[in-house]
């Protein structure tokens, strides 16, 4: 009986205390007809040794290739300390910190996290995290509409990740919110400031960098949105914020809400999760914010302590009138991320951003020197870029894959107007030799 401590003697004593003849009898309120038979699709138990061998074999199948895919999830070095501390039992197996006095570790950590995220995004306050970047964007859209109390339309540039847009659609469509797509400039790859009347809208989403890795003109877009009565939702890569202007400083008065995926800050790629969504905002919007929030307060003796606060917004208190149905945050990944940011510090994170940027620039230059490869956009970039090939992308990626290289993310399905477009990314984890290897292999693949 894995994970069950009971001895036969325990069971006998406990049943005697209950006054039940058998464990089966404890289920006597369940209608007989409903009791199920054996499970047929669940195999026999494996010991830890057996499952261990199986999982090692399976993990070994998922070999590490040289990865140049970004597109929303980024391969960065994660200091060994991060997950060694994060998986300590006291963090790993702790409950949600509702009992504040017995959860000061988690609570103080989240308060520190909130401070870091608010500062990184240049905003006033932060929540304790949401599920991931896509759902955080959806929550931001709902929040902006709630706060606007009028417009049900949100402007959504096509330079926002297609998958994020899909998540937002799925989450807001039943609430009659309309997502209005904004086109991008085919030359520069940036979202142009609308020159026609867009009507009432609750918010404009501004991705920075955008899905093409191109840097939007955030100041102009922010000021335009504010001038036209909409709020600004910044969608950003947190690593980039060590280098790029913080959303709170965009335009004249800054963005109103900032969201994004926290994955680059200490979460491994891990097949796509668990990551976490961050959300920060201006002070004025704090009571509209979904998700848990930690506040600092004092105890009976006046000593500093931390506790969940503003719970009146949340579903377990407010039920059908809550700001969101959200319940869990991504506490453990936030723990990792807070330790990651503490180890990197402002200079470390800036160097990671700069090295990723420089590597991508170098790779881009090498690739564009190959016949049949051209750069798609003229706009400034961060650590991703789109290249166009002289032939379909899929077979080229297959050739690279056979050489152990994941050559990037194929854009042709989501952006057919770009032709044979490939989104590439090279973070600080790539060496000069790695970049060269990619360029050589691509050159070979295209010379055939």
């Amino acid at each position, binding site marked *: 009986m894995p994970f069950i401590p009971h001895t036969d003697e325990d069971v006998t004593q406990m049943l005697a205390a209950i006054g039940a003849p058998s464990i089966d009898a404890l289920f006597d309120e369940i209608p007989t007809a409903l009791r199920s038979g054996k499970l047929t699709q669940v195999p026999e138990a494996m010991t830890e040794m057996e499952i261990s061998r199986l999982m090692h074999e399976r993990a070994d199948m998922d070999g590490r290739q040289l990865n140049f895919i970004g597109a929303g999830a980024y391969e960065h070095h994660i200091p060994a300390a991060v997950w060694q501390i994060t998986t300590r039992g006291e963090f*790993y197996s702790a409950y949600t910190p509702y009992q504040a006095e017995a959860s000061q570790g988690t609570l103080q950590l989240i308060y520190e996290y909130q*401070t870091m995220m608010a500062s990184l995004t240049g905003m006033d306050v932060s929540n304790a995290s949401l599920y991931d970047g896509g759902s955080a964007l959806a929550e931001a859209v709902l929040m902006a509409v709630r706060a606007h109390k009028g417009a049900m339309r949100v402007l959504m540039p096509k330079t926002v990740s297609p998958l994020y847009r899909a998540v937002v659609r799925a989450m807001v469509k039943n609430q009659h919110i309309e997502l209005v797509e904004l086109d991008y400039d085919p030359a520069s790859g940036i979202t142009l400031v609308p020159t026609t009347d867009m009507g009432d809208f609750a918010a404009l989403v501004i991705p920075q960098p955008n899905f093409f890795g191109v840097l939007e003109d955030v100041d102009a877009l922010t000021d335009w949105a504010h001038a036209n009565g909409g709020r600004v939702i910044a969608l950003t890569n947190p690593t980039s914020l060590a280098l790029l202007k913080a959303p709170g400083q965009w335009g004249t008065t800054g963005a109103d809400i900032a969201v994004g995926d926290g994955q680059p800050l200490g979460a491994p790629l891990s097949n796509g999760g668990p990551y976490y969504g961050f959300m920060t905002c201006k002070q004025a919007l704090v009571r509209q914010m979904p998700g848990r929030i930690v506040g600092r307060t004092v105890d009976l003796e006046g000593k500093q302590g931390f506790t969940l606060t503003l719970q009146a917004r949340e579903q377990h208190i407010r039920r059908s009138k809550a700001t969101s149905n959200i319940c869990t945050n991504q506490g453990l990944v936030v723990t990792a991320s807070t330790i990651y940011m503490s180890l990197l510090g402002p200079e470390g994170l800036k160097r990671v951003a700069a090295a990723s940027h420089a590597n991508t620039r170098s790779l881009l230059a090498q690739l564009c020197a190959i016949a049949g490869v051209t750069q798609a956009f003229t706009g400034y970039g961060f650590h991703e870029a789109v290249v166009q090939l002289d032939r379909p992308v899929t077979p080229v990626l297959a050739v690279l894959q056979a050489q152990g290289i994941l050559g990037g993310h194929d854009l042709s399905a989501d952006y057919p107007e770009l032709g044979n477009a490939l989104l590439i990314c090279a973070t600080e984890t790539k060496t000069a030799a790695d970049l060269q290897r990619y360029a050589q292999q691509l050159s070979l693949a295209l010379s055939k």
Partner: protein
Amino acid sequence: MLIFEHSRPNRAAHAQMPAHAADTSDLPAYLLRTDVPLLPQASEMDVVRHYTRLSQKNFSIDTQFYPLGSCTMKYNPRACNSLAMLPGFLARHPFAPAATGQGYLESMYELQEMLKDVTGMAGVSLAPMAGAQGEFAGVAMIRAYHDSRGDTARREIIVPNAAHGTNPATAVMCGYTVREIPTDKEGDVDLEALKAAVGPHTAGLMLTNPSTLGVFEKQIQDIQKIVHDAGGLLYYDGANLNAILGRVKPGDMGFDVIHMNLHKTFSTPHGGGGPGAGPVGVATRLLPFMPVPVVTKENDQYRLLVEGDIPATIGRMSANHGNAGVLLRAYIYARMLGAEGMHRVSEFATLNANYLLKELQQAGFDIAFPTRRASHEFIITLKKLKDETGVSAMDFAKRLLDYGYHAPTTYFPMLVPECLLIEPTETESKETLDGFVVAMKTILAEAYATPDLVKGAPYTQPVRRLDDVKAARELDLVWRQSEV
């Protein structure tokens, strides 16, 4: 001490950053940051020391017993953690070709199959990243189903008043109005009220069974018939699945859709508040609407089904495949349990709950539903104690911390006054339960002898009782540099 107080300008953990600052001069000034973000500037050791010490200020399963109703705080096997974090799994990019992730995808496929079996449903999607997202996906599928049939008048979801707050909140997010129905004295749904509530406006009913009151809904077959006859669908809130794992299948009870909290029944870690995972299972008629991605097996290869593969899908809950690493942990746990082990989970969770109920009753505590069997949890009410001594359920809960036990769930479900919802789970031993009973008795005696002692608790934690009112009134959500 906050991490920022360990910070000094230009201090850094040098092994953790690229050795040189790369050139970024190609970027124009108007796009660049000019201030230094408030991240700590500390040495590696200071960071390690700070967070190691901070961790010690937490209660956790690895250090304490959590008799926390509705939360199923059971042992999280350490193997699930280390195996889910093998380098091959961690390194794979979610957009890497399926061919490079067969180990992961095969595991997920098998997890789907196992979850179908234990829930008795026709299909499972692992996409939702937590229970609330699973609920959202479930209700959105109910809506998509009715909409697809042109049955668009159904705009109301029925929820028992004992339900989790996520139920009504979710219904609203899906554009529904919520109708609450009462609970009878035995803790079951008030059938007459249900009959009166259903109609052509009824989209569905959301139900937890065993309920949040810790009892199995005896009239479930009647309820199912009433809702289905009215054209509504039945949503199963999987919060209490641990109580019936391998014994009753929600599909057999007639539910059309279910979400499961893998961080409860399948023992993935709570992690101080997440990440969870909230897969949904569906009956045949809802298969076309499942959230993507779903793992499929074709010619012995595994891949993700996406939008094009399931055209009527309600869409996606995340850009990727949900909380993949959490799903892996659940898979590993499920394989270690095996079929027999799953049966035993509900058996021993129920045994522990009923034993603890009986021992606490013996010890003088008032059981909220004394005529019923406990499922894997049960409720005691301290109303009498509160009236006689002024000691509230909250005071009682805080005092338990001093005895080294996490508090039970307090003030939920809301319809039982001064309640403690207690769930021991199957992984705790009889000795641990006996120790808990002794602490409960001791505090009960304290409450009568020295009520102020209990009201002032806790005394042994890093802080005394915290001022929540001040926290909400004088919002202090971020630390400021000026505090140094």
